């Protein structure tokens, strides 16, 4: 019989001595591993959280101290142009129509007992008819459709203002040499663009999201407190739609303005993207009955479709019909946004103040 290796003997002995409580040790070992992993996860989580917090703090500091002064100058410029005041007036008219329309509806509701009521210069009308008209035709009913329509009307005037403001915000700085004043200050190139983007976003939300929220609050106060609870999703939709519009339009405008410095080419490019494309897609789908996917070439329709989805508007209430799937519209917007962002980054890297 061959002699046993002493190492093997010792090994066997060790196993033998722990054979009774081996399962306990294994479980304890496993628990220890889990505890360590958990601890590591918590620590990693904390580190990630701390990193994220630091990043956000740093970003907000950069926005406040670097981008905001640029945005402030840009906003002042936008509000100084008398040419734009007509468009601001148009936006304000739309808002006031919705704002006082809700009061008119509330008043008509209280007049339902009467057979006829006098409405200013319009003359005498049946309050029930007036209520139906306001609720169903004009959709002053606090529904998703009301906010969708409101966004639609407001973005019409905002889009024209943005088309004209691109050269005011960026083009003129590049063309006339005002960029020297910015870039000779302790600002990075992306601070400059972030500031300009902030101005466009702020401007856009001032005429779309903010008044929509005011209307939402107003309708809730006129209707009942339950409106806020029942339509909380709507508030989320309003904010999300505003966000989509802001990001998308800001990125496109900045990219176009940084490449096309003059007003006329910029307006032409903008109109091509948002008006000409709409005409083409409408002619193809509604006129020639091509696939509704052709509507995807129309950026405005894509944002509109996503807005409807975010506001939870029923698909049968979306006009024009038929429409492509929302996911595809989102994909197109994402791709265009990515392309514009790439162009913008290339431009920012290459920017030099050269006359």
């Amino acid at each position, binding site marked *: 019989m061959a002699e046993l290796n002493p190492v093997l003997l010792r090994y066997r002995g060790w196993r033998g001595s722990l054979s009774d409580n081996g399962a306990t040790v294994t479980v304890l070992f496993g628990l220890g591993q889990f505890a360590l992993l958990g601890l590591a996860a918590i620590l990693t989580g904390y580190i990630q959280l701390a990193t994220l917090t630091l990043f956000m703090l740093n970003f907000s500091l950069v926005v406040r*101290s670097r981008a905001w002064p640029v945005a*402030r100058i840009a906003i002042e410029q936008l509000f100084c142009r008398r040419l734009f005041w007509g468009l601001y007036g148009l936006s304000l008219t739309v808002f006031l129509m919705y704002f006082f329309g809700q009061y008119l509806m509330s008043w008509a509701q209280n007049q339902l007992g009467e057979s006829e009521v006098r409405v200013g210069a319009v003359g005498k009308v049946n309050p029930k008819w007036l209520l139906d008209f306001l609720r169903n035709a004009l959709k002053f009913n606090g529904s998703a459709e009301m906010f969708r329509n409101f966004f639609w009307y407001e973005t019409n005037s905002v889009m024209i203002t943005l088309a004209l403001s691109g050269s005011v915000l960026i083009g003129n700085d590049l063309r006339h040499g005002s960029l020297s004043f910015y*870039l000779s200050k302790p600002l990075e190139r992306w601070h400059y663009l972030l500031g300009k983007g902030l101005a466009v976003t702020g401007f856009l939300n001032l005429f779309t999201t903010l008044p929509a929220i005011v209307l939402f609050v107003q309708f809730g106060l006129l209707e009942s407190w339950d409106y806020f609870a029942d339509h909380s999703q709507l508030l989320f939709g309003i904010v999300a739609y505003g966000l989509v519009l802001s990001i998308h339009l800001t990125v496109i405008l900045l990219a176009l303005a940084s490449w096309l410095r003059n007003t006329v080419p910029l307006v032409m490019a903008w109109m091509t993207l948002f008006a000409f494309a709409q005409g083409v897609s409408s002619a193809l789908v509604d006129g020639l009955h091509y696939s509704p996917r052709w509507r995807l070439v129309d950026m405005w329709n894509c944002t509109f479709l996503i807005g409807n989805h975010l506001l939870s508007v029923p698909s049968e209430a979306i006009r024009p019909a038929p429409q492509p799937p929302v996911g595809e519209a989102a994909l197109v917007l994402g791709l265009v946004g990515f392309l514009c962002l790439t162009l913008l980054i290339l431009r920012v890297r290459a920017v030099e103040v*050269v006359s």
Partner: protein
Amino acid sequence: MIAVPIPRSDEPTTTTKPLTLSTTPLLLCEQVSKWYGPVRGVLQVTLELRSGLTGLVGANGAGKTTLIRLITGQALPDVGRVLVGGHDARSTSARRLVGYCPDVDAFYEEMSGRQFIEAMARLCGYSGAESRRRAGAMLEKVGMTGRAERKLRGYSKGMRQRIKLAQALLHDPPLLVLDEPMSGIDPVGRAEFVTLFKELAAMGKCLLISSHELDELEKLTDHVVIMSHGRVAAADTVPRIRERLIEVPTTIRIDVTRGTNGDDHRRFAAMLMSRLLDLTALEASEPSEEIGRLLVRTRTPRHFLEEVNRLVLEEWFEIVHLKPVDESTQAVLGMLLARRR
């Protein structure tokens, strides 16, 4: 090329704010070249500035503005590097050290002077209150307090220059780069600007002033950087540059008393021609009955002057006036440019 770095040890260094960059040059351009496609902006420029006033002169297209853009971080050099206080000129840290007064008048015309300066102060990162305080102080410094509330579109060229200077001074930078700062300013304003620049230099700041008006620059400083065809043709004090140019062909005007015969100046000219073989041109005229004038162009001014001395002592000619006609910096520049062609 005559010289490249400018030694600034002879400049006054009374500083109100001690510079921590004493070992590092405030501005260092190392073999910087910049091309705009096939067009040469600057070529192999090396320059070092520490403090005091320095003039940057050169003809149109000499590369002054390109050099200024490289220094202020608005353009990226293709070759070489530009450091401001040890930092890359394109970095935020470098731009904190630089105040830039551009030559363009691209303002936001609908703003008032004060609004514009306050907006620029906010771009420097100051709070609203601090921006207002600094804007007020700078407007006072450039003499625009009384006219600060007017819209920029109503400003004259001189007022615009003052506003541009005010925005460059906002963050109290140690290096000031001023592109044609006195262009369009009336004589009183120029005198004020000259005083201000000298005060700033006395405070230990480093000023690089670009100008076409060499007479104005000479009132400010002796130190000049002369640029030609994208290169630094000379960088030193004007007398030193002139000294180095002593062997460069020079035109000299000599006024000689005509004497009893009335032709002493012609006799003097004949003797000069017999003794000096390198005279390239000699022109005689009689501006008055007593004085005869010679305009002489020589290739070797030093040798020429030695011979003139000898001739005067030997033949007792009476020289009333002897002066190189191209004494000014303008002539130095002209010579340098001509040499490089």
